């Protein structure tokens, strides 16, 4: 499955899909989409990269990427962001929003507005952590399906 047409198409399409997935994750509190959707789009771009390349290339490329560490970082970060609400409030309380924190802590305008990226509080952090978790999990499933492939049928 590694013909020249597929390789060229993948080389052009993969950066666009990855940028679109990152955009959906980062703008989760403003536009449709969120952590799960953006992570799924990002993982589909990585799956395109995995399917369209040779076995040895993928193996040497993904040996240095700690996907299980990403998965754990996503789960623990999500729980930690939820536990931040214990500082005076309840679990899952949005404490960073409207507090003047420099990242994602700006004042949210009420009513119809164009949408400012520096708002959202813990929702934006939760979007990013869930996105990291989903992309690591789905990519590792596709990667393990690819890596258990028998060597003698590698031509296809």
């Amino acid at each position, binding site marked *: 499955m590694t013909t020249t047409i597929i390789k060229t198409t993948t080389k052009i399409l993969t950066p666009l899909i990855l940028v679109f997935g990152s955009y959906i994750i980062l703008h989760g509190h403003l536009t449709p989409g969120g952590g799960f959707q953006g992570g799924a789009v990002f993982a*589909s771009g990585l799956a395109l990269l995995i399917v369209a390349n040779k076995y040895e290339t993928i193996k040497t490329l993904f040996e240095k990427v700690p996907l299980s560490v990403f998965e754990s970082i996503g789960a623990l970060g999500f729980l930690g962001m939820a536990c931040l609400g214990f500082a005076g409030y309840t679990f899952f309380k949005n404490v960073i929003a409207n507090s003047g924190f420099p990242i994602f802590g700006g004042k949210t305008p009420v009513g119809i507005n164009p949408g400012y990226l520096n708002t959202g509080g813990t929702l934006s952090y939760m979007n990013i952590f869930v996105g990291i978790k989903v992309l690591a999990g789905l990519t590792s499933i596709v990667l393990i399906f690819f890596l258990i492939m028998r060597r003698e049928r590698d031509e296809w």
Partner: protein
Amino acid sequence: MNFMEFFWILQVLIGIGLLISAIVAIRFKNLIMAVIAMAVFSLILSLEFYVLQAPDVAIAEAGVGACLTTAMYLLAIKNTTDEEVIE
């Protein structure tokens, strides 16, 4: 053509497309063709979600249903035999 006529024509076309792709995915004996028909089914279903004003579900369906499960099924078929065994 006003908006409601376009909406109902689109609904009928999406229904016919869903039915045809589902029947094709069931009836084909070549497994790779069946998997591609399932990807087409997921893509038409995500278009239906978008028409019904649920863009979140449309993005999730297009990402997971049309790309990731197709890649998983293709890799699983590649790990086993290509043709369905008929006895």
